[in-house]
């Protein structure tokens, strides 16, 4: 949720003013357009007109993050290596890094360079995304929350036939990203991207033989109308519409952006409307899901690096370090005492103004008084869930073996490796996405799967796996 919805600039929010007051630093914020963050970041880098500090993903791992990762960004002279700066000017952050070795490993490069002031997630907030389903429909139809692929099929069929859902299962697909991530795919013991196999080796899911089984399933569901016919065109707005008009009864989405948002929206119109989290589906009943969404303590996208354009990096560092102090943490997490929160028995509680606002959701209100995401440590006492179903969903979604199988997001291939990786993955991603949709909509015969795998191999996937493997080995040695 973006504060810019209410104020043109973060500096004008109560939060921005309080921060300027406390630190004595007046800051000019530049906010990219939410839809085009990646393009605007790329343009900013290309034009070499950098602000003092940039909140962006520098890991080089996710789509859009700085290609080549932090080592390259430092070498390119875009951002500063922060080791000395943290030592001298960021005592609060330094303390946190010294106390938490696991975090320390995540936020530095193979050669031990620090490059950001990190957002440190609350350990209870690492899982926030997963399959969800209309509980009120399930109750009407006398069905349990589905756990296996077969149960899902039965449920979706019932949604279609008895509830008139045009697209019983629908997920967003934007900018070539299929937001189902590893749900359903994980049932076949593989993943939508690179993952760590049971033997501890890096693998690329979309060329696994098991991946074909997932494609076969979704192809069937698509043909039978159980899976959204327009899935490749469904952005989050379209999904909102489908969820709220009863065209869709199940999706894979976020805790607050999904369950919370939709239940809020339906509170008045249809008080029965109820969404609950469903476990990541498995093939056989009782299996612990192979993989699911689970994030890391360090959130690179909401972390700030200091650029080489900063005239006074020491001051920037001090300003950023304030967020890790006890006082700063309260401001960043809860906002202003007496206005957005009050202390009750030593625990901060959001005021009514924030919690029960007529027009805006809790998250929208929090974004004015505090910073929902950003470089600071998230307080474990903070909870934005407004419905018990949300707390429940986190528990359900957490029960996976994701921790074992997800590739750490902070691997740092070397400069040369990154370049090679970039060339390979650009082609692979393009080809994979195209074939993915074609397999599902039935335009490509599923028998051609082997040719598809062969083509991806030809594009160099084995080399990419090799690069990630060696980066993983180095990461483990950090």
């Amino acid at each position, binding site marked *: 949720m973006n504060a810019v919805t209410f104020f043109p600039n973060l500096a004008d929010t109560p939060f921005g003013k309080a921060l300027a007051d406390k630190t004595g630093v007046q800051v000019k914020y530049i906010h990219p357009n939410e839809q085009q963050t990646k*393009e605007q970041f790329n343009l900013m880098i290309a034009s*070499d007109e950098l602000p003092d500090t940039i909140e962006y993903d520098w890991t080089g791992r996710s789509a859009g993050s700085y290609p080549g990762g932090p080592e390259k960004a430092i070498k390119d002279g875009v951002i500063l290596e922060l080791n000395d700066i943290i030592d001298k000017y960021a005592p609060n952050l330094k303390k946190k890094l010294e106390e938490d070795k696991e975090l320390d490993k995540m936020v530095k490069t193979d050669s031990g360079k620090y490059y950001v002031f990190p957002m440190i997630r609350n350990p209870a907030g690492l899982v926030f995304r997963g399959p969800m389903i209309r509980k009120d429909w399930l109750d009407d139809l006398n069905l349990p929350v589905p756990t296996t692929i077969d149960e899902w099929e039965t449920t979706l069929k019932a949604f279609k036939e008895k509830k008139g859902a045009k697209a019983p299962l629908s997920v967003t697909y934007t900018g070539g990203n299929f937001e189902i991530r590893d749900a359903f795919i994980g049932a076949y013991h593989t993943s939508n991207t690179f993952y760590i196999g049971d033997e501890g080796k890096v693998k690329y899911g979309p060329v696994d033989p098991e991946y074909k089984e997932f494609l076969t399933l979704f192809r069937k569901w698509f043909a039978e109308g159980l899976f959204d016919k327009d899935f*490749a065109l469904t952005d989050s707005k379209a999904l909102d519409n489908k969820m709220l008009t009863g065209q869709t009864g199940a999706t894979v989405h976020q805790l607050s952006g999904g369950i919370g948002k939709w239940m809020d929206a339906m509170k008045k119109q249809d008080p029965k409307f109820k969404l609950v989290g469903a476990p990541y589906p498995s093939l056989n009943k009782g299996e612990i899901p192979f993989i699911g969404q689970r994030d890391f303590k360090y959130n690179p996208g909401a972390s700030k690096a200091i650029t080489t354009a900063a005239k006074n990096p020491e001051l920037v560092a001090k300003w950023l370090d304030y967020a890790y102090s006890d006082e700063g943490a309260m401001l960043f997490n809860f906002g202003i005492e007496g206005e957005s929160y009050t202390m009750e028995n030593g625990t901060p509680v959001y005021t009514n103004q924030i919690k029960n606002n007529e027009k805006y959701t809790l998250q929208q209100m929090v974004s004015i008084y505090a910073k929902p995401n950003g470089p600071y440590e998230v307080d474990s006492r903070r909870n934005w869930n407004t419905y018990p179903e949300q707390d429940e969903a986190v528990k359900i979604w957490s029960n996976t073996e994701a921790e074992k199988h997800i590739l750490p997001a902070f691997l740092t291939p070397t400069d040369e490796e990154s370049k090679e990786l970039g060339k390979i993955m650009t*082609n692979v991603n*393009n080809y994979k996405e195209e074939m993915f949709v074609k397999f599902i*909509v039935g335009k490509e015969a599923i028998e051609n799967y082997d040719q598809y795998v062969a*083509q991806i191999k030809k594009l160099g996937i084995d080399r990419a796996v090799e690069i990630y493997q060696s980066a993983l080995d180095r990461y483990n040695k950090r």
Partner: protein
Amino acid sequence: MAKHPSQVEHSTRLPYARTKTLGRWGLPKDIRKNPWLYIMLTPVLLYFTVFNYYPMYGALIAFKDFSPRLGIMGSPWVGWEHFESFFQGIYFWRIIKNTLLISIYELIFAFPAPLILALLLNEVRKTLFKRTVQTLTYMPHFISLVVVCGIIKEFTMSDGIINDLFSFFGWERVSMLLESEYFRTIFISSGIWQNIGWGTIIYLAALAGIDQEQYEAARMDGASRWKQMLHVTLPGILPTIIILFILEMGRIMNVGGEKIILLYNPSIYDTADVISSYVYRMGLQEFDYSFGSAVGLFNSAINFTLVICSNWLSRKMNNTSLW
């Protein structure tokens, strides 16, 4: 006394057709003669220098391994590497084919559409009706492309209005933007819808410039409305058509990338992916500036060649040309 159409053929030159060449020392002399004209020209020249010619040196990065920090001059040279990897890439022929096909369809279907509408409007004698049609057909031109594409998406969805219509006649519902074979039709027809009215403006202006005496003469010779259009109207606006055609040729490889990017998705890349959308994906989304720029340069080179050729051809055949 009315002139026969064939006698006036060459008098309908457009004002910017070449009329006189300056001699070797003509320019300084001309400046002294018309100082104000040249002063007024200065901002225009400046504009083109700053915004169109100066950035051209940036095209150098197509031959370099561009890194923003090192800058254009500082980045190392790599020669034709990016061009080679483009020509050898698995998508080269596909995007060339798509670009050409969409352009050719545009030339066949979209280019004549405003001309036809203008000719039809020209035959309408009821001013009120003519104005109404004109205004209605102009309007889509002013809708932002993003909105237009949103409308197109909504309409072509499996439960959209177009599917409602077709399913009424017993067709099966399909998500049209997921089907590669529909893409070109959707792209071209929505383009016509959006631009037909706007395109007629120039033709209507040219039509207004035709000497009314010619029609009188034609009528005296016993020409029907149809014959009048064929022998008076069409030749009268032919130079305009040709100029617009040459301009269109220059854009032949420049299929509207924005619109495609807003409309396409991976399942229809095989008909929808064109050079400009590919450049966008590679250059800006994947951060491969040099590669993107190499592809873009290649594209411009073809466009340049096409304009020169069609201009030359038209000068030979019709005596009408841009320069």
